[in-house]
């Protein structure tokens, strides 16, 4: 864990060399080339985080820094996509393999009026301008080394744009898949712009095979004044995968961003969620569920900034930990000076299913205004013995009773999902983790 500084510096230079020797990208707009340059320069300055850095202290990065992950010249074979069904049946679904748009595997359905969804390489018009104005403005390129790497090496950018006043209930799905190539680096990138008064639903999914690969997804969500964005993220990276990603959002005046994440799978996964509440009346909701087992490491960092008056945020993160897995929830609510009447809530609940699982929970508040309502709560524990006894006394077997209680604990996070197909899909993921899933399926 305590990697010598020199070897980390060595790893850093490998990526700098890769950048210099990257094949020429013909026809790429100048602003994008400049953005890439900004990314690699930020990475050069920042380097890999040191294990003594407070916000990276618990993330075992040596696994990542010790391997040289490279971008493959072309998309590889993806066993994970054979017979793969996306989480959501309805609406368009765009598939990216190894960061490159895969038109063949994508499902084209009619886009709702006013909504554009396409890779940057096939974009022009108003949406293309929106990309230039927004790409890289929200992602923490300067602070987060993996967001910087993504910015430097991104292959193609998935863009979803909802024009002013457009309303759509049909979800737009994006699937980022990784192929079976060993030690490859993938840099998925998603930009969602919801113009003022528009309403949009987006589902982002990450899947991968059994290879040891590094994925650094970066997502930027812009919600202009009065916009409503429902964003769902399902992370199922492969068993040996390391995924280090960021999701950043900015909510304008009276805008609402509701984020829902589910993390399962991956050897090491870390998601940094940044939310800036910039307009009065902005409302952000962050819900997350993480299911870990084996030797998985799963980390969620949230950075919620209330930058102006009358803004509200609510975070609930729940974890079910099994095996020797380790999870981190580190949430920060920051109320800026003058951001009066802020209402911020934060909650983290961890359920330990095994003796060797380890849950870290750091719910943090930084408050520089006095007329605010802020609270946070954190609990960690095992299943309630009395509840188990109650079920057992009514003839429910031990495995079934356990499953029912875990389901009840985790299902709370799935209830608010508004996309019906996704709701069932995530339930399915949860069922797979329960010892007596058949009975529970029947009961609920």
């Amino acid at each position: 864990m305590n990697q010598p500084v020199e070897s980390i510096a060595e790893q850093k230079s490998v990526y700098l060399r890769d950048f210099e020797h990257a094949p020429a990208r013909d026809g790429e707009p100048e602003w994008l080339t400049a953005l890439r340059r900004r990314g690699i320069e930020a990475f050069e300055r920042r380097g890999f985080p040191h294990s003594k850095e407070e916000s990276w202290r618990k993330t075992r990065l040596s696994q990542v820094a010790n391997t040289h992950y490279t971008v493959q010249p072309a998309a590889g074979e993806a066993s994970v996509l054979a017979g793969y069904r996306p989480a959501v049946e309805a609406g368009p679904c765009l598939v990216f393999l190894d960061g490159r748009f895969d038109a063949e595997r994508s499902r084209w359905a009619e886009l709702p009026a006013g909504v554009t969804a396409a890779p940057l390489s096939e974009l022009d018009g108003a949406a293309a301008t929106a990309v230039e104005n927004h790409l890289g403005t929200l992602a923490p390129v300067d602070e987060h080394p993996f967001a910087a790497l993504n910015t430097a090496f991104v292959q193609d950018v998935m863009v979803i744009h909802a024009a002013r006043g457009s309303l759509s209930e049909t979800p737009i799905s994006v699937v980022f898949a990784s192929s079976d190539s060993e030690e490859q680096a993938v840099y998925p990138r998603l930009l969602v712009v919801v113009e003022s008064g528009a309403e949009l639903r987006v589902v982002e999914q990450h899947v991968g095979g059994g290879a040891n690969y590094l994925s650094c997804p970066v997502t930027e969500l812009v919600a202009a004044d009065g916009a409503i964005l429902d964003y769902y993220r399902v992370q199922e990276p492969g068993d040996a995968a390391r995924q280090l990603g960021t999701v950043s959002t900015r909510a304008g005046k009276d805008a609402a961003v509701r984020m829902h994440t589910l993390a399962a799978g991956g050897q090491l996964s870390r998601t940094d969620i940044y939310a800036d509440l910039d307009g009065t009346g902005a409302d952000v909701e962050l819900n997350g569920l993480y299911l870990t087992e084996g030797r998985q490491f799963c980390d969620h960092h949230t950075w919620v900034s209330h930058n102006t008056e009358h803004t509200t945020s609510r975070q609930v993160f729940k974890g079910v930990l099994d095996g020797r897995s380790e999870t981190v929830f580190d949430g920060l609510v920051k109320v800026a000076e003058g951001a009066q009447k802020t209402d911020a809530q934060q909650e983290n609940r961890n359920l330990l299913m095994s003796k060797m699982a380890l849950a870290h929970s750091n719910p943090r508040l930084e408050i520089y205004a006095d007329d605010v309502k802020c609270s946070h709560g954190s609990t960690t524990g095992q299943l309630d013995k009395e509840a188990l006894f109650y079920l057992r006394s009514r003839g429910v077997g031990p495995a079934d009773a356990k499953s029912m209680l875990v389901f009840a604990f985790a299902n709370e996070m799935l209830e608010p999902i508004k996309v019906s197909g996704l709701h069932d899909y995530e339930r399915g993921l949860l069922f797979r983790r329960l010892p007596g899933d058949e009975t529970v399926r029947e009961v609920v």
Partner: protein
Amino acid sequence: MSATTKTLEEVTTRDYEAGFVTDIEQDTVPPGLNEDVIRFISAKKNEPEWLLEWRLKAYRNWLNMPHPTWANVNYPPIDFQAISYFSAPKSDDDRPKSLDDIDPKIKETYDKLGIPLYEQEMLAGVAVDAVFDSVSVATSYKEKLAEKGIIFCSMSEAVENHPELVQKYLGTVVPHNDNFFAALNSAVFTDGSFVYIPKGVRCPMELSTYFRINAANTGQFERTLIVAEEGSHVSYLEGCTAPKRDENQLHAAVVELVALDDAEIKYSTVQNWYPGDENGVGGIYNFVTKRGLCQGRNSKISWTQVETGSAITWKYPSCVLRGDNSVGEFYSVAVTRGYQQADTGTKMIHMGKNTRSTIVSKGISAGHGQQSYRGLVRIAPTAENARNYSQCDSMLMSDTCGAHTFPYIDCQNPSAQMEHEATTSKIGEDQIFYCKQRGISEEDAVSLIVNGFCKDVFRTLPMEFAVEAQKLMEITLEDSVG
């Protein structure tokens, strides 16, 4: 301007001058820190060889330690070479001549607290040659304690008279390389208190540093060690409610508590050092490492602190719950006003089975005060059925102050139950209105609400202390609202 308002540099320069003024050269060392200074301190105090070695080990470790930056406080870098690490007690010429020489604000506070005049003079460090009542009181207490076999003396006396006890326990709870300031303290500590309660003895009175205050100038690097043998019980009070004048700006104390089987230690602190003037100039830096080890079964350590002074407080009284069924408690009220900064909290490390810990932290911020609660609750895999309850509430009394909460909760045993709750609030206009319409003045209403807010903590203080603390709170927060 009183001596206390001077900055670190001014103070240290004066120390430096004093070094030349003093007639006996060996009584002081010039500012700066190196192995010779440590050897000098050790020799001066007639310390045994092992203690010198220990100090030097700490010093060598300290040299390789970076100055910690993780705390949520801001202050200019400290020049450790500008501090004089050993100086003889101040001669009367350096002290304020009378109470008229000290900051009138402090004098005002003394009067409000109802402190007798001679005690005021003593607290302000005024040179007086009258014999205080408390000295004779202390002597009679000492006799009573000796009867029970209790050792209560300064650290230097303990090193001289009970070296085997000191050697056995010193550094066992806070190792010499624990953290930057603890390492510095281990290298250069000059004095402090030593308490030893023999097996089965219940200390008949509250032990207080207050009785020792004029007996020995404990200095800025204080080291306290309290050992409670099997089945013993002790309650220890540190500090007092009256604001205390001090020449040194940097304070890096270390407190170690050891509780063996069935022993109980209750450690209460009221800290009210000079916080700097209204512009945030001057004031004490209070960087303290306090840790208790519940080594035995069924042992209990309870920390209670009321922190109202110091420009910067950096303090985390902690409990290591190693014995089965041991209990750790932390109750804290911290007030920051003016430009005060406090980063304080606790660590509860659960290792034994059925260990329990309670954390109640109340923070009050006013003016430009910045306050952080930083706490760790760690449940080791061996801590079956551990239980923790944490509550940290903050109250904000102006729109320029800040209240922050950084709890760390690491749980490695599924049978553990842990809860953490935090709230942030301000005194509601409706609450004030309610009081006022019932004929309670605004000032009284504020004090009523604040004392209600802190009640959970004050309740755990020894009776007299609690009354004083309440009074202190009223005075501290006067004119803070409105």
